[in-house]
């Protein structure tokens, strides 16, 4: 501790000296740099934000306004009926419920399975560890488009095709989650655990009182990612469901497009907004949480 204080003190002194020497030139340079930086940030914000504004704008346009070029950003009259038309095009309440149910169920199951698994991979040595971890990695990288047919046939032989099972069970464990959490657990310094062991803390206690708080940011981040990716999942529910009552929002939205008739971009974008609005709301409130999570992920 003492050494560190001394270091910082000498640093402060050095910085002070430096500042006095070239403060004037620096000031001008800094102002220019600051202006440049702010305009850079604004450009970034525009690049990443404008498609959303454009989506909102289109969803409120009348059909004839959509195809005006150069584009018009604010419609003459806000066409909220686009939303009503999109919502009434199918059982959207049911889709919505299904999306929520499936995303949350998967999240809970993933937490239940990945925490012990990641802990075991990070902290224990056992014979089949390498093999089992390889299986985990394999699960992380196999695309759904490859596995769905066997899973479909399997589910049907178990008579589960008309239930939520094919939508939930294959995602009950996450290779990504295990991988991510294992990395985190591995970063917990051995000394901390040794110290806890010396205090006679049980394995459970170590896991829940030491590891978990440290992994909290990662868990929050994973929870958001998992929920978001399940919410947005399109391919799997499309191929796994043959009845309306099991379908989710992304499918309802994709169905707004008709192959042979003229696409109503206003309605499609309104449907899109219905699909992404919950995400944007969650993100709006959880954004601090995410960033905080990242900030505190370092070990003090």
């Amino acid at each position, binding site marked *: 501790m003492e050494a560190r204080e001394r270091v910082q003190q000498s640093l402060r002194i050095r910085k002070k000296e430096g500042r006095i020497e070239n403060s004037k030139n620096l000031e001008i340079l800094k102002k220019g740099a600051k202006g440049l930086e702010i305009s850079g940030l604004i450009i970034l914000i525009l690049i990443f934000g404008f498609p959303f504004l454009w*989506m909102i704008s289109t969803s409120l346009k009348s059909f004839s306004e959509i195809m005006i070029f150069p584009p018009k950003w604010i419609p003459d009259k806000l066409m909220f009926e686009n939303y009503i038309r999109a919502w009434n095009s199918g059982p959207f309440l049911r889709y919505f419920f299904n999306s929520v149910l499936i995303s949350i169920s998967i999240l809970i199951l993933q937490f239940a399975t990945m925490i012990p698994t990641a802990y075991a991979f990070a902290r224990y040595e056992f014979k089949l560890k390498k093999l089992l971890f390889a299986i985990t990695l*394999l699960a992380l990288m196999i695309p759904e488009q490859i596995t769905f047919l066997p899973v479909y046939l399997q589910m049907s032989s178990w008579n589960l095709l008309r239930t939520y099972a094919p939508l939930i069970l294959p995602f009950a464990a996450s290779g990504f989650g*295990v991988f991510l959490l294992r990395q985190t657990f591995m970063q917990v310094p051995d000394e901390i655990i040794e110290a806890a062991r010396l205090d006679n803390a049980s394995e459970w206690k170590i896991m829940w009182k030491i590891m978990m708080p440290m992994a909290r940011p990662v868990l929050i981040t994973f929870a958001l990612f998992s929920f978001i990716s399940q919410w*947005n999942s399109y391919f799997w529910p499309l191929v796994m469901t043959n009845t309306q009552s099991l379908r989710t929002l992304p499918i309802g939205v994709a169905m707004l497009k008709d192959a042979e008739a003229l696409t109503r971009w206003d309605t499609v974008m309104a449907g899109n907004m219905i699909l992404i609005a919950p995400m944007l709301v969650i993100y709006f409130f959880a954004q601090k949480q995410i960033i905080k999570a990242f900030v505190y992920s370092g070990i003090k």
Partner: protein
Amino acid sequence: MSFWDRVKPYVMVSPSITVFLLFFIYPIMYLFFLSFTSWNLISLTKTFVGIENYVELLKSPQFHLVIKNTVLYTFLMVSISIGLALPTALWLNKRGFLHKFTQGVIFTPHIISLVSISLVWMWIMDPDYGLLNWVMGFVGIPPSKWLANPKTALISLVVVGVWKTLGYNTLVLIAGLQSIPKDIYEAAELDNASKWRNFYKITLPMLSPSLFFLLVISTIASFKVFDTINIMTQGGPIDTTNMIVFFIYQNAFDFFKIGYASAAGVLLVIFLGLMTFIHFKLLANRVHYR
């Protein structure tokens, strides 16, 4: 070691492993089996054809093109999305409202469904009504057909992919940056180390776990690209955006060539497995774990 101590790890991993075995390993084995058959999905018999599917696949110029496209796309995605994320992270890793806000905004595409993103970008890249050509017009770049031009279609998909993942990559790297203890920099400053030297000697090594993580995740994700292709280009024009997963899906479920598609699937799994293995072997030593 007691019996329980030996069994405990297995008990802890068993729920996950069961899921993986049932829904990933079994399907791969089934895929492997199917790859030696000729099957149209509904005929009762699956004719055993040996390695014929593989031979046909390796001889097919279309498959060669598909592999080339996939590798090119992956290379571009990984290098550009991480290459841009690193400076962006260094830049945005500051206090202050505007920096935080920008972090929030560039991350947003990551939470949006690829269906929505593809639809919006198709419209943005429309050669006639699209915003992109309109914006390019201000900078003096002549209009392009983007997705419809065989020369630019693949790079257009990369643009969409980078747009979607840059924010995520940046935030992961910012998290990595923030976990680097400040005293290391302070010590370096005492030694009068240059900024570049700091970056090269401290930041980069300390960031390597995050970079490694991103490298693995992006490579795998890029290799699996499907949704954007399916919605935006359908593999066209003239197969210039036909990539492996789309190729497999199309052969299996549009053309009902299950055996042929399975053979391609097996090759994909082997390739992905190999790549992950190489990544781990090559980088494990260099990566700085704390």
